């Protein structure tokens, strides 16, 4: 991928764009240009009807079986609807507000959500979005119309981080509302009791949904590279704590790694796709990861 395209997918550059649609478009197009063997073609379109051949139509679309029966050229047209129903579940709790650089976790997550929505709808898939913190804030059911995309992007754009997370309760609520088998894309920092998080996501799996977990963290949340005496203020509870960060760094990094490993193992055991993304990572990695998963779904 050329450097220019890389720039298109650089979170720091993308975040400078004001319009969420533009962001999504930028990400997706930048991504697609760079892709050599695109998995974009050949899925999510089904046969709809035949129509007479007109000069100029691609020959590969001529239905030869009909030609054999009727000795007339008919073109095979495809249904624009899709069976894939995707739910993007986005954590918008106050903890997502954290940033050690220029881009918050929420901005990163929002851009991913927007880009995925754009991609899904462009592929004629149905996409819905649910934003939550303690409770569900927005719940947009999946649709595949182009106008729906505008709506989703508008909602994403309006999302503001606030309050605590309650993943367990919220996911249980969401799961009860999804009846058809769907693709669940769960975007969160997963800062809650890991066992509860795992349990609630596992419930989706039990309901036969395909689940992709995108674990978003800030690089500092992983590396904890603070040097001086530091006062930490909890973004969700406003609680304060004074510590010598460099003294506890080693143990903190160990704890976080342990939690990430736990997520990895537990999700893998339950056929849930899990991946950790830090906000300094380029968006193409996220999209590539999604498309690979999507390809598996067929």
């Amino acid at each position, binding site marked *: 991928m050329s450097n220019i395209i890389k720039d298109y997918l650089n979170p720091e550059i993308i975040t400078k764009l004001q319009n969420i649609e533009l962001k999504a478009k930028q990400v997706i197009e930048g991504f697609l240009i760079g892709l050599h063997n695109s998995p974009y073609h050949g899925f999510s379109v089904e046969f709809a009807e035949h129509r007479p051949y007109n000069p100029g139509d691609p020959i590969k679309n001529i239905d030869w079986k009909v030609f054999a029966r009727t000795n007339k050229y008919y073109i095979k047209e495809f249904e624009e609807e899709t069976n894939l129903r995707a739910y993007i579940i986005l954590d918008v709790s106050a903890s997502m507000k954290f940033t050690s650089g220029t881009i918050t976790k929420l901005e990163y997550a929002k851009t991913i959500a927007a880009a995925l929505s754009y991609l899904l709808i462009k592929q004629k898939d149905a996409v819905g979005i649910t934003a939550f913190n303690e409770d569900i804030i927005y719940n947009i059911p999946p649709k595949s119309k182009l106008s729906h995309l505008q709506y989703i992007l508008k909602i994403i754009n309006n999302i503001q981080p606030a309050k605590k997370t309650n993943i367990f309760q919220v996911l249980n609520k969401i799961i009860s509302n999804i009846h058809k088998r769907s693709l669940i894309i769960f975007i969160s920092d997963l800062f809650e009791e890991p066992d509860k998080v795992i349990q609630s996501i596992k419930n989706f799996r039990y309901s036969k949904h395909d689940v992709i977990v995108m674990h978003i963290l800030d690089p500092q949340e992983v590396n904890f590279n603070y040097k001086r005496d530091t006062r930490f203020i909890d973004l969700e509870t406003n609680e304060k704590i004074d510590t010598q960060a460099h003294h506890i760094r080693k*143990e903190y990094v160990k704890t976080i790694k342990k939690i990430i490993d736990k997520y990895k193992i537990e999700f893998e055991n339950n056929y849930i796709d899990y991946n950790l993304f830090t906000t300094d990572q380029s968006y193409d990695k996220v999209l590539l990861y999604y498309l690979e998963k999507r390809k598996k779904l067929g």
Partner: protein
Amino acid sequence: MNFINFSFLTGLILSTIPIIIHLLNKYKKNIVEYSTLEYIKKINQRQLKRIKLKKILLLIIRTLIILLITLAFARPLIKTKNTSFSFTNNLSQSKLSYAIIIDNSITSKAYTQNGKIINISKNIASKIINNPKNNGVFYIISIDNLTSNLKLQKTDNKIILNELLNSIETTDLIFEWKNVINFISKNLTKTLLPLKQIFIITATDQSNLEKKDITTFRKNFQETQLTIIKPFKKNINNVDIDTVIIENPQISQSGTIPVKAIIKNYSNENFSDLNIDIFIDKKRRYQTITNLNANEKKIVKFNLEIKEKGLHKCFVSIPDDDFIDDNKYYFNVSIPDNFKILILYDSANTNFQLQKAISPIDSNNLFITTIKSINNISDLIFEKYNTIILNQLTTFPPYLLNSLKNYLKNGNKFIVIPNITSNIINLNKTFFNFFNINAQIEQIENLSNNQYYSISQLINKNITHDIDNKIYWQNTKILKRLDLFTPDKNITINHILYNDNKPFLLSFKTNTSEILFFTTNFEEYASNLIYQPIIVPFMQNLIQYAIQNNSQKLLENRDIMYKNIFFKNDFPQTDSIKNENTTINFAKIDNFKLIPANYIIYSDNQKRGLSVNLPRNISNLNYNNKIFDDFIEIEKIDDINNKLNANIFSLEISIYLLYLVFLLLIIESILARE
């Protein structure tokens, strides 16, 4: 603990740096809004105690490092009984050399409850020599009675050593420690056998041995133990100096200054062989020994000889174990410099009674006077003199006026002594010349237009006065008369000296200068005043004060009034040395504050002068007698062995401190890296 480089201890302030940094860090925190404190909290709880402990540990170590480095540079010496630390320990089995300095100066003549000090000192020396641990060559240093020089005797034969000790006698000399140090530095720094120990046996509170002497000792003999032994300890209580009287402290230039110390024993105990010392500029210069019975009051006389010019801070000291501050009586003696005085006269006048006043036959060449005719001088010579006296001039050459004005502008003083025929016109003229004052001749009643009183005529009139500078003549303020001479309001009368209720000397103060103006010439007083004992020292004092920088302060100070100055038959007799009426405020001298003192003029037909008794509580003089850190004080003869066996010696521990610093640095780096 003693320090070779005491001044380095100021560096201890640096040890506060880690504490300051610690405190700054405590209040200067990095604030981070973080997504969740869940994990930090858990870890912090576990780590907090360890972190705090480590932090405090690091702080202590860092402070200690700076502290120890500073101490190492100050080069401390500690007292130790443990010889295993000794640098010379490896030599303990081999032969060594020892030096014993026995102070057989005048102080050693004193008796204590244990006997004569010299005998105790010899006894101590004998114990040192006969101590089996002290094996080697001994050097005995004392003053030779015959030659009055320091004597060094050396032998390793203990029998001869004891004989040598017995031959040491007391002298009437003072032990000059500077000479002693030079002497032993010259003779003992390169001994054949290593010099293990120097014993100094001296009554420390009576001898001149000072801290700087000890420091010099240490510098010259770095690897030698230095033990100072005080041969007795005696408690003397309730002995006080009532007063000290100093004659002619301000004007004696050479010769002797008699000092009388009145001491009193307020206790019911008899004290024998009390040491009375006079310290001049912190140095013990005079000593005497006296007995003082219970409740006895005694006058002890000293004759001070001070040749160095300038102000000398002195005190009389007696031993008193109860109150350190109570046994010193401070005073000061000023040995003035020669003052150059230029006396200008008219060629017509050749009578120099004035010179007699300034340089009487029995004076100590206080003033160097130069007499020149006013018509025979260049305008460049004024600045060479401390003061100029215009003696009975009738005219003043115009070409000298500018030089004289400049001389006055520079703050110099001059004295005007009018001519016997001086009258107001002449004086007006004089002031016009000097101050550019166009004096108005004022009509005085009963006088025709061109008739004026001479000064002497004025004085002979009925003049009344009071002390506040208000002088009346025939019910008219004489100030008004004086205005004739000094219509410039900036010229004020500073003080007036009276003789038989008549103004005798007026002091004027101008913006820049001081003029002493005698109301008469000395011819009038030549027969009856000039040789009176008071006039000469008084005039000398006035002139001296007028010239010296200090004098300006003296004269500026309105509190200073010369009250009750006794003339002729009014002198108190010798016995009444103190008269309450004579108390005045004394002037600022050097950096002393204005302090009350007794100012006495007295005469017994032979002696005359001013006595100044400054009070003893002069806070800025701090004579600390406790200058030794490592000395043995012998209370009983039997104690000698015990005290010496304790083998107290000083050890320089800088190197150990630096080892410790190195160790601490390693620990610090390990802790800090964690």
